[in-house]
């Protein structure tokens, strides 16, 4: 490993963390969505600063080439985040559906009330 690639690893991991924290700070990201990205950033930082931990972890689960562990964990995290998004999208659609139904029913009431108050106004 060259000094360049060592620094690149640390800087990219740090960048991920800075962006996630900044989005959280500005309320552009809710905690439950940020948590996976935060974990990913932390793991990348640890592996970046102490490459030995990566080799140790790869050895522990029996992966011969440590970089494959990086790929495996990255894909797993991306997959889970995607799944979480699909599930939240479904919940949002259900909520939108309920809102649309409510608004349609309320619209009928508004029209009926308007008609009734118009009749009353003519009586005066």
């Amino acid at each position, binding site marked *: 490993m060259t000094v360049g690639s060592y620094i690149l690893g640390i800087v990219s991991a740090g960048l991920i963390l800075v962006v996630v924290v900044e989005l959280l700070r500005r309320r552009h990201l809710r905690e439950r969505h940020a948590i996976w990205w935060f974990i990913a950033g932390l793991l990348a930082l640890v592996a970046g600063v102490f490459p030995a931990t990566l080799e140790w972890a790869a050895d522990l689960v029996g992966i011969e080439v440590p970089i494959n562990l990086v790929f495996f964990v990255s894909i797993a995290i991306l997959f889970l985040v995607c799944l979480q998004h699909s599930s939240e999208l479904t919940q949002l659609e259900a909520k939108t*559906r309920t809102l649309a*139904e409510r*608004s349609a029913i309320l*619209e009928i009431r508004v029209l009926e009330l308007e008609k009734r108050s118009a009749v009353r106004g003519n009586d005066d």
Partner: protein
Amino acid sequence: MSSRLGSTLIVMPAFNEEASVGDVIREVFAKMPGVGVLVVDDGSSDDTTRVARAAGARVATLPFNLGVGGAMRTGFRYAIENGYDNVVQIDSDGQHDPSSVPALLAELDSADLVLGARFAGEGGYVVRGPRWWAMKSLAVILSRTSRATLTDATSGYRASGPRAVALFAEHYPAEYLGDTIEALVIASRSGLRIKQVAVSMRPRAGGIPSHNPFRSAAYLGRAAMALVFAFTRPPSTYRVGGSA
């Protein structure tokens, strides 16, 4: 009988049906004077809402298309909030003959959900090929689940009694085919009594039924999936009132 008609709401989901919805509403009023009619305009881009209002129906206009399931749940919710006991679903394309409504309602004495079936002898509705096999096998499976003889499980012509209205106002499925297949499954899994009555169907005013084999295969697959998920869904997802 007439008292039941007074507490019945006819719900007509309508998606771009300006050509036919007016006539259907007038026919309903002519055959059943005094019945409540709610047209649910399912995000139409045409004049459905205006035409239906002009014909004398109340119209719930959904801001965007939700599919038949979403439109019907709006109808069930409206029925509950406005004190209707029964809901009858009628297509707004003129395919369902409103003269059969009293026959459907009469069966609510001994059932919670009554289906108007197309293949039960009356009328001249014909379907062939894979779509027919799909409908046939669905009918067999759903008959077994609901302990009733159902020959036409995907019929959209149905009457719901008070228990069914309460269930569907909360849990009418919005998924494709959910409004027909899954609604039947959750109704029978909730212990509702289901019955079938023969009704005559008229040819559709517009559009032609699909006989494309790929479409039919897709229909078969989606129907099977809807069925599997309907049966494996945890009961908590269709419980009424949170506690019961």
